[in-house]
């Protein structure tokens, strides 16, 4: 990203102009939709329509409930190994250009994750009960 400098002390980030326009259009579209709909939509409310899930199950209890910590562990393990795969893709694409260096680096990365895997395994993170 380059910033075009005009007068000393002045700068115009013109490269970002499309982003600014995009933000403006997005805001206008969102607000516009809400305003137009509130003008045209019919207003007929009854108890059934005001439930959180219309034509769904009626909610039971508070939405804030405690989950078992196991879910979090599974989620974290998923993120760790998901990131590993995310790294493997670009690595595979440029592998023939970088060669041995990339190979060694990726093996080190996988080795460190492997240590984490062994740790998680031994700590029974993969068993549910």
């Amino acid at each position: 990203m380059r910033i075009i400098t005009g007068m000393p002390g002045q700068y115009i980030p013109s490269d970002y102009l499309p982003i600014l326009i995009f933000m403006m259009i997005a805001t206008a579209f969102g607000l516009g939709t809400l305003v137009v709909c509130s003008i045209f939509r019919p207003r007929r409310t009854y108890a059934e329509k005001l439930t959180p899930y219309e034509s769904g199950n009626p909610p039971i209890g508070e939405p804030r409930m405690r989950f078992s910590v196991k879910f979090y562990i599974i989620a974290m393990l998923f993120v760790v190994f998901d990131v590993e795969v995310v790294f493997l893709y670009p690595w595979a694409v440029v592998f023939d250009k970088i060669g041995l260096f990339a190979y060694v680096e990726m093996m080190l990365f996988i080795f460190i994750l492997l240590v984490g895997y062994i740790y998680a395994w031994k700590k029974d993170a993969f068993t549910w009960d």
Partner: protein
Amino acid sequence: MVEFPPLGPVMPEILMTGFALLILVLDLVIKRKETLAFLSVAAAAVVMYAVLGTSGVTFSGMFAADGYSMFFKLIFLLSLILSILISVKYIAIERVNYGEYYSLMLFSTLGMMIMASAGDLIVLYLGIELMALSTYVLAGFIRHAVKSNEAAVKYFLLGAFASALLLYGISLLYGLTGTTDIKGVAAYISDNGLAGNPALMLSVILFVVAFGFKIAAAPFHMWAPDVYEGAPTSITAFMSVGPKAAGFAAMGRVFLIAFASLQVQWAAILIPLAIVTMAVGNIIAISQTNIKRMLAYSSIAHAGYALMGVIAGTPEGLAGMMSYLLIYAFMNIGAFAIIIMLRSEGFSGENISDYEGLSKKHPVSAALMLIFMFSLTGIPPTAGFIGKFYVFMAAVNAGYTWLVVVAVIFSAISAFFYMRIVMYMYMKEPRREVELTTSPALGLALAISALGVLVIGVFPGRLLDLARIAITLGWGL
């Protein structure tokens, strides 16, 4: 084909990674956690030895093992060793004697080492995150204590916020200069006369906020008292020295190299910051009744003193700041070691009133606490005096005499709350029987800290020479 970068300069970090992983795995088979503590200390000693023999720049300037980083790494490893030594018995009393504790401490120190050596802002960020994430977990390590959980969550939320601000500062800087290389940023700013650019100033401010959070400088200090109070005491000792010193290491590099041509501007931000930090730390510490909380405010105040070395903006100032942080490691961990001694089964020993009459039954511990309190106040012949002396001297030579006068006044105020502990120990009658928990490791840590405080206090020349040599060996990457 990409050539292998030379791995010599990163050898200490590679070793540290290996040891941290090894301890994590060994924890699965070794049932006696004291063995892990011993292995961690040995690992830290090996890494320390490797640090002393390492120099050079690698990964195309992204990583530099120079005199500056070497000195800081020695501070980190020293505080790591001392913190492990004071932990051994303590975490057993707190019923959190798990092996991950030591592994996380090694990872955190690894992050600090990467920060001190970073020649690139992305590497710096990487180091900060590795350090911070490990410390967040350690802060909440007493997982059955609500206070510890609160400390971890607070530290995490605010730390994540500070990291985001740092990233925002880095991205602004990258947008302006097209590089994240610390030296490259400096060259681009001076070549293109960017010094007055408002976006650049915004970036400087974001860096000040992010580093201000890491070193717990007011007004970014709000997390420190709660986190220091809630975290395990041994981790409080570790956190108040290591991450703070790492923050200063990164700060010195970024401000004195990348923002070298903006020195007038950032000094104008840092000077009020330093004054507010000293004021908040020293004045609020007076009203504390919990000693960990009091030392948290004291730690904020000490960040203010060390900040003056950065403000001076000279190699002398940096050398003063570096020796200050080393001295601070000795005296602060020493003081926390005494706090840990007072902790025993069913007795927290965290109230200042628990120190009443300590000298009657435990004269040695009281005498050691006296030395650390004198040193934290800055009374000769302890190291604390020398540390303050060098930092103040550098600030005077840089033309900030009035700032030094302010700092000395606040330093005099600090005598009130440090000396109160001494007064309680020696001039009051004990209100209850205080049993001390001792262990050989804790004794060793106390001996090292006390010796450090006294030897540096009596023969200060060596230390400053060391810091000066480290600076001349290179700090410009």
